[in-house]
């Protein structure tokens, strides 16, 4: 039982990272109808920004964190203007290829600067964790879970309670009608890219001390996050979060009880099972909402 609780904690911690990246996937997909294959590189770039500011320049952790997030917001702007905006009136295919191209460009640019050896980033806290009864709570996982909870609450408030959130939803449901009402569609898509880049960046910075900072970290996280969106129900915000958490828990338990080397395999087994037996995911794709 103690082990179950311990694994549950770790699983939710890593699942929260998948959930954040998955949320970024879904938000961009809903706004542009395109899967952003560079979503994982958003996390990777942010983790390397942390390495630049916190390790290389030796700035305080919190300052590096804020600057890295601001940098990700700017990155979202540049990504939108450079990758999506020039192709916005084309079909989805050129846009998808452009995001794949951006993904390759980003990881190879970082490779050219930092080389293939992984970098190490310290966690936010000096204390490694606390013992709570039978469960050891790692401080970085605690932080990840806390930040994810706050972001999910923020996300709900933003999309359900603010007029700007409603405009973003309207744009993702019917761009032409949104423009007829005077909603600036290009501004809404810009906001979506900024928000998704910051979400992905946050996930990268939070998970970096747990993993290593490497050019592959983006694709690993993105693959899991993509699986999470399908498990949760593609295009569904709640589904992305639940799918991410579920995937984190499943792979952690699989690693502990079955086989560590096949840890990643469990995630994809679950993905395949969903694709075969419930392709609409846990929450299903509410077809009417996509009309």
């Amino acid at each position, binding site marked *: 039982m103690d082990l179950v609780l311990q694994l549950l904690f770790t699983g939710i911690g890593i699942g929260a990272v998948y959930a954040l990246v998955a949320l970024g996937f879904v938000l961009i997909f809903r706004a542009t109808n395109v899967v952003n294959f560079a979503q994982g590189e958003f996390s990777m770039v942010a983790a390397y920004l942390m390495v630049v500011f916190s390790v290389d320049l030796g700035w305080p952790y919190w300052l590096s964190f804020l600057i890295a997030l601001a940098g990700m917001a700017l990155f979202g702007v540049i990504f939108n203007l450079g990758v999506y905006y020039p192709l916005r009136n084309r079909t989805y295919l050129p846009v998808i290829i452009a995001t794949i191209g951006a993904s390759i460009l980003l990881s190879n640019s970082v490779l050219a600067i930092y080389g293939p050896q992984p970098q190490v980033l310290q966690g936010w806290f000096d204390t490694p964790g606390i013992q709570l009864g039978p469960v050891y709570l790692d401080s970085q996982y605690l932080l990840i879970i806390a930040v994810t909870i706050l972001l999910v609450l923020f996300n709900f408030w933003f999309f359900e309670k*603010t*007029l700007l959130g409603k405009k973003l939803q*309207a744009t993702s449901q019917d761009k*032409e009608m*949104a423009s*007829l*009402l*005077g909603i600036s569609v290009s501004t809404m898509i810009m906001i979506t890219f900024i928000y998704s880049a910051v979400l992905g960046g946050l996930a990268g910075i939070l998970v970096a001390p747990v993993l290593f900072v490497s050019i592959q970290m983006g694709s690993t996280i993105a693959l899991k996050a993509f699986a999470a969106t399908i498990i949760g129900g593609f295009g569904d915000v709640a589904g992305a979060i639940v799918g991410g958490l579920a995937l984190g828990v499943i792979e952690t338990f699989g690693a502990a009880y079955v086989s560590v080397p096949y840890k990643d395999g469990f995630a994809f087994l679950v993905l395949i099972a969903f694709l075969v037996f419930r392709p609409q995911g846990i929450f299903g794709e*509410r077809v009417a909402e996509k009309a």
Partner: protein
Amino acid sequence: MPLLEIRNLVVRYGEIEALRGVTIAVEQGQVVTLLGANGAGKSTTLRAISGLAKPASGDIIFDGHSIAGLGPEAIVRLGISHVPEGRRVFPGLTVKENIMLGASNRKVPASQISREADAMFDLFPDIRAFSNALGWTLSGGQLQMVAVARGLMAKPRLLLLDEPSLGLAPVIVQAVFRIISQIRKDTTVLLVEQNARMGLSVADHGFVLETGRIVLGGKPDELWGNEAIAAAYLGGHAKAHA
């Protein structure tokens, strides 16, 4: 000077010429109805006015200024609100949210927009009870009410209504046209209708479109008195041209 003047408007979709030189004028305070068969170019005319379709040539003058070539976001800010074919109510937003977003062309605080949306239910009492229902759950008549209410939230000087009666039961059609006759007190309306009888019943002026050209224009009485239009709408004449 007319509020809206369209001169020799040509719109092409690829090779197809949807409008081949349309000229109409809408005076301030009028309800003007565009009649015509399917594919005559009625919706395209509205889409060109609201900026969804780019004119190939010709001009669209609103309140003395050319708006041809402007984007839809800019045009609605000038005071032209387009309630398009098919209602296009956002399916995943509630009725009230849909209506509130109609004010996106104006810079007013959210609290005021919310009050104005509530006031809109006085004009559309049938949808008040569905204020918190999601768009996709509504019936065709309710969707039409929401679409018109949303269009009015822009406080337009010119309201473009595309086929408001399409697919609705006769009793609902009458309710929609009662609303149009109320709207006309404050707003100029350009109405597109296939239902000629209903369309002309509220109109000050009517135009008949056939295959991208205006073939007739005049007061409702004159149009009804015209043998060609009577033939077009009571016989098979218009279909032969469409």
